[in-house]
């Protein structure tokens, strides 16, 4: 689609969002909760907290719910009945966690709109989409991805833990956003890159009247964001130094809590489990983390990733080497959540930067 550009005043963006809510859309935005900010359902524009840099968790759960029912089953005598959750979304179990998240209602789930996300979070969608489609087409993911509309607001001032620029995005990137807003003018400038974005703007005549189309040139140009280090170098180091002692020493301080993976917008590992009684139950998939020892524990008792160093190395390898080799992108949007949330102050930006420097100096 050809990109389109608009200008919209502060008042009108408020109207737009409230209209979307009134049109029975589920609108999700950063919202104050327990002296922190989380993505949560809003019923009014004013609920949204647009002043903070990033909510504590990403909106990943709207694409990959924390728990997702794949199917239900019941056993009677020697027969087993399966109820496919995707085909029978209405009958399937709906889990509403109150946080507005984990809705795994499948096809009939309807559209969800994320408002006020940052370019980093928005960028995670297409990055994950590749994983869920390169071989097996994961309809559960795709249904949600298709129905998720993302209106992001560009960052003005990243913090010390941010490294989206290094991760080949930028504070003003529109990658993954259906509509990218930038502050300026009477309120915001909007860049619409997808049909979904247009669909939102044209969802009513009132809505479309709130946006004033402008030329590409009238849209403010991106700042010249400079990367502090070269992520390719990081990759280069990882390519050659699987056995480096760096990992073992550095991650002695890692307690394996998995917060980095759980709060990461792109980490997407899950675990499949059955739950129920003797006669009926359901098969679900739950978030999982490569930082847990049990993640790679073999039935034999052998564990190929025996130390936390091995596990964190895996996280680095996956994000900055393996994924890149397959999809020519990084499995990281540089949001810095893993660093900010780490109880042991392990800083991914610091690590990727150190690795790039070590690659430079040829240090192992």
């Amino acid at each position, binding site marked *: 689609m050809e990109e389109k550009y608009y200008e919209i005043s502060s008042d009108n963006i408020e109207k737009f969002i409230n209209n979307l809510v009134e049109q029975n859309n589920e609108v999700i935005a950063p919202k104050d909760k327990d002296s922190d900010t989380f993505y949560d359902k809003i019923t009014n524009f004013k609920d949204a907290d647009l002043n903070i840099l990033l909510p504590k968790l990403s909106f990943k759960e709207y694409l990959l719910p924390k728990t997702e029912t794949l199917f239900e089953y*019941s056993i*009677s005598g020697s027969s087993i009945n399966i109820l496919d959750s995707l085909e029978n979304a*209405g*009958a399937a*179990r*709906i889990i*509403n966690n109150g946080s507005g998240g984990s809705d795994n*209602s499948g096809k009939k789930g309807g559209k969800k709109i994320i408002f006020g996300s940052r370019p980093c979070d928005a960028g995670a969608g297409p990055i994950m989409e590749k994983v869920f489609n390169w071989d097996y087409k994961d309809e559960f993911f795709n249904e949600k991805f298709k129905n998720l509309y993302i209106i992001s607001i560009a960052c003005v001032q990243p913090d010390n833990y941010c490294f989206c620029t290094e991760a080949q995005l930028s504070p003003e990137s529109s990658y993954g956003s259906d509509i990218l807003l930038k502050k300026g003018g009477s309120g915001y400038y909007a860049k619409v890159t997808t049909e979904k974005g247009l669909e939102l703007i044209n969802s009513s005549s009132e809505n479309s009247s709130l946006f004033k189309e402008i030329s590409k040139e009238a849209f403010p140009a991106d700042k010249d964001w400079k990367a502090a280090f070269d992520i390719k170098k990081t990759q280069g180091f990882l390519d050659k130094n699987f056995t480096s002692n760096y990992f073992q020493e550095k991650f002695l301080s890692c307690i394996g809590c998995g917060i980095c993976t759980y709060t990461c917008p792109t980490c997407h590992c899950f675990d499949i489990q059955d739950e129920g*009684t003797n*006669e*009926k139950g359901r098969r679900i998939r739950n978030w999982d983390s490569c930082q847990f020892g049990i993640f790679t524990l073999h039935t034999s008792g052998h564990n190929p990733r025996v130390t936390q160093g091995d596990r964190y190395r895996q996280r680095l390898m996956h994000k900055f080497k393996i994924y890149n080799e397959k999809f020519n992108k990084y499995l990281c949007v540089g949001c810095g959540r893993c660093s900010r949330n780490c109880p042991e102050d392990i800083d991914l930006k610091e690590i990727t930067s150190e690795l790039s420097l070590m690659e430079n100096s040829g240090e192992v």
Partner: protein
Amino acid sequence: MENNRVEEDDKNAQNDKGNLSGSGSAKEKEPRIIAFVCNWCTYNGADLAGTSRMKYAENVRVIKLPCTGRIDPLFVVEAFKKGAKGVLVSGCHPGDCHYTSGNYHSRRKYTAFRDLLSYFGVDTNRVEFSWISASEGNKWVSVINDFTNKIKSLPDSSDIFSKQ
């Protein structure tokens, strides 16, 4: 939507169990009570109630274990999660444990566990603990009847372990 599932389950239950007025459809009226009892005192006490042809409420389902010391408080959580409205734990009187001290250890654990349940908003009226010896068939009967009546008198619980 939560309700949808419950209805669906009900249908399944009906189908599975035919016309039986057993566990399936009776659940609206008759709360399910699970009793975890020790093999040596309470199970024998219940047997004595039987051989004495005493009558008591039908709601209780007994799970036999060697000793109250084996009855993990987490079984109670599982019982609640699987729909039990009340859980009874019963074993030998202090000093009478077949294994010397199983009931003492158990009592300690349940003391803390009950506090925790209550703190998390589970009505501890739903958990009963009693010492019933092998000669106390009548006590078994009165404990079961009283507990069943108590459970019936409680409002429908909405605590975290009542949901499925």
